[in-house]
């Protein structure tokens, strides 16, 4: 499996990472070599094996439905790029 420039552009777009024309060759080559490494998995038969998502086979712990978090807007928005009237500002969202 080898990626084309078009594939790389699609992946970059899905990842929301700009890849310039000058970079795309190198990125494409590196991704292909990593995918080559990953391909080694296909040599093993894993039929009937249950996928392992977690190191420990334990169940989710649940919390009680109580409000514990105070309003920390000021402290949290101190590090925000652009804020007005308590809102985070972003370029116009078109629906």
């Amino acid at each position, binding site marked *: 499996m080898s990626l084309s420039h078009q594939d790389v552009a699609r992946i970059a777009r899905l990842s929301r990472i700009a890849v310039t024309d000058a970079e795309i060759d190198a990125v494409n080559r590196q991704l292909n070599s990593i995918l080559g490494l990953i391909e080694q998995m296909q040599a093993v038969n894993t039929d009937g094996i249950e996928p392992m998502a977690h190191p420990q086979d334990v169940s989710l712990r649940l919390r009680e439905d109580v409000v514990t978090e105070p309003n920390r807007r000021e402290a949290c928005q101190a590090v925000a790029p652009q804020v007005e009237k308590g*809102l985070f500002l972003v370029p116009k969202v078109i629906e």
Partner: protein
Amino acid sequence: MKWEVVIGLEVHVQLNTVSKIFSGASTAFGAEPNTQASLVELALPGVLPVLNKAVVEKAIRLGLALDATINQKNVFARKNYFYPDLPKGYQISQMELPIVEHGKLNILVGDEEKSIRVTRAHMEEDAGKSLHEDFHGMTGIDLNRAGTPLLEVVSEPDMRSAEEAVAYAKALHTLVTWLGICDGNMQEGSFRVDANVSVRPFGQAEFGTRREVKNLNSFRFLEQAIKYETQWQIETIEDGGKVQQATVLFDPDSGETRMMRSKEDAHDYRYFPDPDLLPVRISDEQIARVRSEMPELPAQMKARFVDAFGVTPYDAAVLTGSRALATYFEAVATASGQGKLAANWLGGDVAARLNREGKDIAELPIDAERLSGLLVRIADGTLSNKLAKQVFDAMWDSGLSADVIIERDGLKQVSDVGAIEKMVEEVLAANPKAVEEFRAGKEKALNALAGQVMKASKGKANPAQVQEILKQKLA
């Protein structure tokens, strides 16, 4: 060609927990922007989700009410897409193993009961809100709503008209408010509907290509949107075009739908199990406990009302339209022993006055005991219908019981035969012409005479008795 519309609904039910699905931030509606967005909702680096137990239990509640399978192992997954109101860049939702699957919900279409299959209901977090008012041409992001727990309830494409879709949506709305898991406030977005709509020639087995109408927040919009979309699809095909799979938005102002995105730019959500959350495991005991805490369901109550109180299935359906109404009806019907009368009053005068005042059954100023007192006086002949309405209005405004008002205003129906005979004789003597006419075969003259008697009694004479005595005297 005759066309058939096929509809499936996806409903986002906001659960009425006090804290968010994955953090201890408040879910209260209408707070100052971003004051209820905790570190977790802001998706600061390093923060982690911890699941709210109430969300699981409310989901189990709905699952049991839908007669569905509760998956005792269910798994959260990440749904990846970038959007400024989605702070993590993924929504925590459920994909392969949702908490609820294979349920059903019955709806009434005309007189026919129809069962709509519910594919699944899964737990997920709500997104924040984008505010498009002008911030120098920018959009403002408020994350207070982010992390509010949702159940996404997905139906099979089992509905065949806008009316059926509305009936299903209403039945689900009734159910979630009935179960006490959602406040049902559609204006505030607590119950939001997406409709998958397609059309096909009558008799064709395969479905047509569907378009999804997003975010309908009233039953009226749901109906309008489906009707518009159906018409649009039929016209498109009849004009030689093809319906393309797409997501569309309904514009309530124009009554039309418009394209949001086509299948080509559909998202690739890259679902995978959320490694921050382990599988949710639900024990038999937990299910049994939730079951024991559930109220009687509307369907069961409906059947019981027909049996126990002799009301019609239609009335029973109306009466179980909300838990508050059903509870109120049952209390009145039981206390008064007058099920049908109670149903008539609740569907008639009570509903009319509530409607006029823009009030909900929960805000009715007459409690069940007082209303049943009124019904008892109608049943035992103390009050005519006309007097009863008068007493009802006085009860609404005063807080007094029917008996007190009847006594105070002297509104007791006169059923004393001697008194009525006296009034009849006086009326007959004063209206010889009408008596003549009646005897000449003019039946209508009797009504005029009866009207005179009622007038003489100031409306208090028992109308049936008046008729009877008049006929005797004229015979």
